[in-house]
Structure formats: C-alpha cells, structure tokens
C-alpha cells in the first residue's frame, strides 16, 4: 500500500464525509423547513471548516500528482469552474441566511433554501467528476476531452449518483432529526444502498464489500436508534467515511478506469517533504479540531463578572451565531416556532 496515495484517499474520504453531511442538510432544508434550527445548529459553526477541507484535498492532490493535473484541468475545466462558482454562492447565501435581519425582503428560510439548492448542485457535480475520474467514463482515450453526452447516457453513472443521494436523504432524517414521514428514512437508505452497489458493480469497478457492509450496518443501526428515539450523529459520520473509503479502495491505485495512479506520483523529494508537512500540519489540525469539538459540546456559561451584561433583547445580540438565538427562543426572523407535539409556525 502506497503511503502517499493512502493519505490522499483518507483525505478524500474526510472531504466527502463533510460534503455528504452538508448535502444532507441541503436535502433537509428542501424537504422540511422545520429542520432549519437543527440544521443550522450543526452547519453554522462548521461551514468554514468544510470549505477548507475541500481546498486541503485539492492542494494535497496537486502535491502528490502534479502531472495528472493538466489532464484533469483540460477535461473537467467546465464542471470544476462551475462548482467553484457555486461554492461562492453557497458561502454567500449561508452566511446571509445567518445574519439576515428580521424585516428584510428575504427571509432566513428563503436564503437557506437557495443555499440548499446550490449545495445540492455542487454535490452532484462533485460526484460526477469523482466517478468519471475513477471509472474514466466520459473521458476520451487520450485524456484530452470529456463527453458529457457519453457520461450522462450511462445509466450506472446516474444510478451511482441517485443511489448516493438516496442514502443522503435517508440518513438526513437521523442526522437532523427530521420528523416528517419518518418511514422514508429506512426505505430511502436501503434503496440507495442497493442502487449504489449495483451501479458500482455494473460500472466494472470492484467494491470492498467488507468495508461497505460495515458502513451499511452502521447506517441501519443509526436509523434503528432514530426510530426508537435516539439519534446517533457520530454513527452517520462513520458510515459516510467508511462508504467513501470503500469507493476509493474499490479501484485502488487506478484512475480513469485503467491508468495507474502510481505512475503520476510526484518526485520523491516533494512527496517526502509533503509527508513531513502533513504530519506536522495534521497534528496541529487534529488538536484544533478536538478543541473545536470540545467547545461544540460545552454548554453555554452563565454571565460571569468579567463579562459585560448582554442585552436582554435577542435582536441586539451580535450574531454570535443565530443558532443559539434560534435554539434558545425558537425565533426565526422574529416569528415564533410553537413547540410541543403539534409544532407549527
């Protein structure tokens, strides 16, 4: 097993895990507007980190396989730039939805939904690029051109994407505690899993069944927990991570269907230096993320003597995450959510 390639795969798995969970949030926003507080509670503090992980993966890939970049750039320039353009929209609408004032023409929900649609499209584009790079479908023999028609007319490519989205939809119930027609959660997840595995095998890519079976088991246990009343968010992360790892490893060392990834590896001097930077930077990153997680789980403190008295009017609070404003008083754009069994706006 090549260390450099493995690091890149693990990174890709982390990136896809974050993106997958964000994709689930997008689906949740579209499917059930009441998911807004739960989704934003997760999303608000973490969106900046997700974007950084995407850049991390892109740069890591460039560090490890610089000579493959011209081929990828020529073939996927349009979808890559389109996804990048949409990425600006994703950030803008997310942060605008967070800070929008209550008497604005645009409500928080509308902005959040635009964000969701954008994120949804980004996820589809990235999945498409990913499966095309792995399988080579759509790429011509000389790796100088990409045919969208060939790519889109392949039913198994569509099956792969649809399967992934169905899994995301199914798991989003658990992750964001969506109550609307809960029974769709297991149905969608199981259907998605079947469609995904079938498509992958028909694409001629071998799958790591052990990893994938483990992921499927965790996913189903999570759903079971959820149906019984206890959501297991961590389990969803593990599921997605393992799923992506399994996709990566299903064609280990291969790119564009038949090309050997090892042939594209950078010279040993840069690869070695990158490992050093990865170890040092990765350690710092792990410490920072653990600190983030610790703070995420820490409850709000009472006002202490060395702090100034905050205004009692919630609208006066600096947008120290509207997520706390929302979760504390159930207000969205000044309108109150009713709580209890028949929760309605």
């Amino acid at each position, binding site marked *: 097993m090549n260390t450099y390639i493995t690091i890149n795969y693990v990174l890709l798995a982390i990136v896809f895990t974050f993106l997958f969970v964000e994709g689930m949030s997008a689906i949740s926003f579209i499917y059930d507007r009441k998911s807004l507080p739960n989704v934003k509670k997760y999303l608000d503090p973490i969106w900046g980190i997700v974007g950084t992980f995407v850049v991390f993966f892109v740069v890591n890939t460039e560090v490890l396989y610089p000579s493959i970049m011209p081929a990828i*750039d020529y073939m996927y320039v349009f979808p890559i730039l389109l996804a990048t353009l949409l990425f600006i929209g994703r950030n803008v609408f997310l942060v605008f939805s967070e800070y929008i004032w209550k008497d604005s023409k645009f409500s928080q929900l509308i902005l959040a939904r635009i964000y969701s649609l954008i994120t949804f499209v980004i996820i589809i584009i990235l999945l498409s690029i990913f499966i095309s790079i792995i399988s080579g479908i759509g790429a011509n023999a000389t790796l100088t051109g990409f045919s969208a028609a060939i790519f889109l007319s392949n039913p198994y490519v569509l099956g792969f994407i649809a399967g992934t989205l169905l899994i995301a939809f199914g798991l989003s119930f658990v992750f964001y505690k969506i109550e609307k027609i809960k029974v769709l959660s297991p149905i969608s997840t199981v259907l998605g899993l079947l469609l995904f595995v079938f498509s992958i095998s028909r694409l001629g890519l071998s799958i790591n069944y052990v990893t994938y079976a483990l992921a499927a088991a965790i996913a189903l246990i999570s759903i079971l927990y959820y149906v019984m009343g206890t959501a297991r968010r961590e389990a969803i992360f593990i599921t997605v991570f393992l799923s992506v790892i399994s996709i990566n490893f299903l064609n280990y060392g291969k790119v564009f269907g038949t090309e050997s990834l090892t042939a594209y590896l*950078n010279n040993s001097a840069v690869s070695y230096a990158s490992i050093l930077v990865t170890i040092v930077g990765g350690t710092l990153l792990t410490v920072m993320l653990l600190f983030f997680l610790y703070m995420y789980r820490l409850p709000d403190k009472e006002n202490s003597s060395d702090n100034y008295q905050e205004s009692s009017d919630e609208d006066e609070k600096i947008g120290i995450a509207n997520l706390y404003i929302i979760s504390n008083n159930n207000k969205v754009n000044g309108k109150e959510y009713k709580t209890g069994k028949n929760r309605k706006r």
Partner: protein
Amino acid sequence: MVNLVLFDAGLMGYSLAVHILLVTVGMTLPILMSIAEFVSIKYKVKLYDVLAKRLANALIIFFAVGTASGVVVAIELFVLWPKFISVLGQVGILPLYMEIFAFFTEAIFLGIYIYFWNKFRSRMRHWLLSVFIAIGAVMSGVFITMINAFMNTPKGFNIPYYLSTGKIIDVNPFAVLNTPTTWIEIGHVIGSTIFAGAAFFLAYFAYKLLKTKGIEREYYKKAAKIAAAIVIISIILTVIIGIESITNLMVYQPEKFAALEMNFNSGPNVAEVIGGFLVNNKTVDSINIPGLMSFLATGSFNGVIASNDSLSAYTKSTWPPVTVVHNTFDVMVGIGVLIGIIMIIFLIIWLLNVNKIRDKFESNRFFRKLLSRKIFSDPFDNPLVLKVLIIIGVLAAFLLEDGWVTDEVGRQPWIIYNVMTVSAAANTSPSVLPVGIAMIAFYIVVLPATILFVRGVMKKRDLNKELGAKP
C-alpha cells in the same frame, strides 16, 4: 476568435483584483478586532467590547465571501495554468500546502471565536483565539507570497536542465521558502495589505466621525484611533521595505527593474525617469532628474548603474509592457510616499494632542501660540483631517491594486521568470469561456452585495442601544 491565453490572464487578473480587496479586509479585521477586545478586557471599556463584537460580525461575513473567493483563485490557478501548476507541483508547492494549515487555523479559531463566544468563562482565553485568527490570516498571506516570490525568482531545481530537456531534476522543495526575493516581498506585501485594510477602515470611521454625535461618536473615535495607529506603523514599514525591494529587484530581476524605471542607460550619473511613454524604444513626455537614479540606487549621484539594469541589455520580445508598468510603478511610489508623509504629520499632530506632551510644549509661549492653531487641534475632531483620511482610504485600495499590477505585469511575458511563459502555461480549452464570463459577472454582483449586506447588518442594530446610551 477569442485569444484564450489573454482570456485566462484577464480572468485570473480580475479574480485576483477582487480577491485582494477581500484579503485586505480579512487580514486587517482580525487585528483590529483583537486589539479592540484586548483593550476592552484590560481597561474594562465597554465601547471597545462593542467594537470587537461588531468587527467580529463583519469578519464572519467577509470571511465567508473571502474564503469562497480564495477557493476560486486557487482553483483558477489549477485549471487556467495547468503546465505552470505542474512545474510548481514538482518543485515549489510546499508553501501552498502549508497555507492550508494557516487557513485551517483561521477557520477553526474563527468558528470557535464567533459561535462559541458565550461558552468562555475567561475573556482573556477568548481573546487569545483572536490572536490565532490574526496569525492564521497573516500566515496565509505569507505562504501565498512565497509562491509569488518563486514565480519572480525561481529556485529549487536544475533550471538549465529543465530549459533544455523539459525535465525536472535536482529538486529541493524547501528552497522555495527562501528565494532571494521571498522575505523582502513578504514584508512589502503583508505591510501594504495591512496598511490598505486599516486605511479602508480608518476612512469608514472618519466618515462616521463626520456624521455622528455623542457616545456613538466616541465609539467611532476609539475605533479610528486603533485603525490610525495600524495605518501609521504599516505605511512606514511598507515604504522602508519597498525601497529595499527595489534594490533587490536590481540584483535579482534586473529586466523588471529596468522596465519599472523605463531605463535605457547605464554607468554613472543616471537620471531618474518620472512618468512618460515609450515610443519607438525612446522615452517621451517624461520628467528626467539627472543623477537621481544613481543616487537612489547607490547613495551617490555618480554611482554606477549596471548595464543589465538597462532595457538595452534585453531583446524587446522579453520586455513587459514598459509604459504601463513604469507608470503604475511611479504612481505607487508617489502616492505611497505622499501618504507616508501625511501620516507622519498626522502622528505628530496626534501626539501633540496627548495631554502630557501638549502640556510640556504649552509651557513655551511660542509653542502655545502655534498649538492654538486649528491644524494642531485633535485630528480626530478636525473635519479637514477626517476628509483627508477618507481620501487616503480610497487611495490605499487603489495603491494596493496598482502595486500588484506593477508586480504581475512587470514579470510578463513570464509566468515563472525566465523559465516558463504565460502563453506556454495557459489552458486553451474553449470550455473556459462561458464559465469564466459567468464568474466575472458573479464577482461584479458579489462584492457590492457583501458590502451592502454588512452595512445592512450593522445599520439594523442600534449602536446607541448596544453602547448602553439612554434613548
């Protein structure tokens, strides 16, 4: 048919021009915010506390757009210049990789700083986060500038072998961290970026000082003082390092130096050419000051300018657009020095209004009379001075863009100096066109929309109420 090389260059230049403005704000805001929060904790002044929180609000919004813009620039670098990125990847990619961790530092600590503000029992610990955010922001700039320095003065591989065979050997990936221009360029870039950002905020605070009264005015005055201090320190450092970087250019990028100076002469007593145009390889409509270039370069009017610091030493095909870069360079130096002088005068007036210093001077009758003049009144209360500060804010943004144009256009036709041309590195796939145009259009909307949004967020919150003023 559209020239795709030119389109790629235009798209990259345009994206960078917008991104630079966002970086300027993104790098300066954490510094302002950190200072404000520190003062608020140390001296228990609520005005600074409100300032820190408001700046934090603005920062997260600008961060969202700035991050996305940064991703755009990074991705553009990859897809528009595949051959360049291929060489960079095999030799000098490490700073870009390190930048990711600086970026993470900023993103993670900013997330904790903003979203978990209420979870900290110790305000000092919370303030510490702002220091890390500022370090992360500045270090991102440092690492990216290293890449730019590599483009200006490539190092870390066998260049003659690459030029003859196209193959890269003898790689030292750490050499890119210390090229001959790296540290000078970092000093100049970081200094000028912080200067421009602080000047922009100073202009905003000065505008508010002209418009507000009472406790609100007091609030903006305190904010303006922090920004003014940063502007003064950063412009002085930027000018000093700028002078040093010209000397550096003479040695390591002589052709670029010759173009910036529009210089065709060598030997002793060489004139400084100010302004002018290049027509048929001759300088016209310029102001020539005899011996000044020799003096600036060597400290003596009879100092010798080397022959390779003259455009005559190079074939015309490798010259950058001389008239453009010469004039952008002159404008940068002229306005930069002028702002530097104005800010030093500002500092003197400011210091003369510090009670202890003023008391000492006023014990002398001459100084008492002199200091009673309006120009020596508190500069933050003087409408004329405030208007000048607003103009400086606008000029600072222009200056920053102008400086980058000088640097990047001055390296043309090379993307990596004397190694790879821009046209050789460009992606000539026609797919670039539609999405490139969409990107340009999108940027045109995004930046003003963000500024308006931040303004809206700030406006909708009653500052007087936040400051605890009675209605």
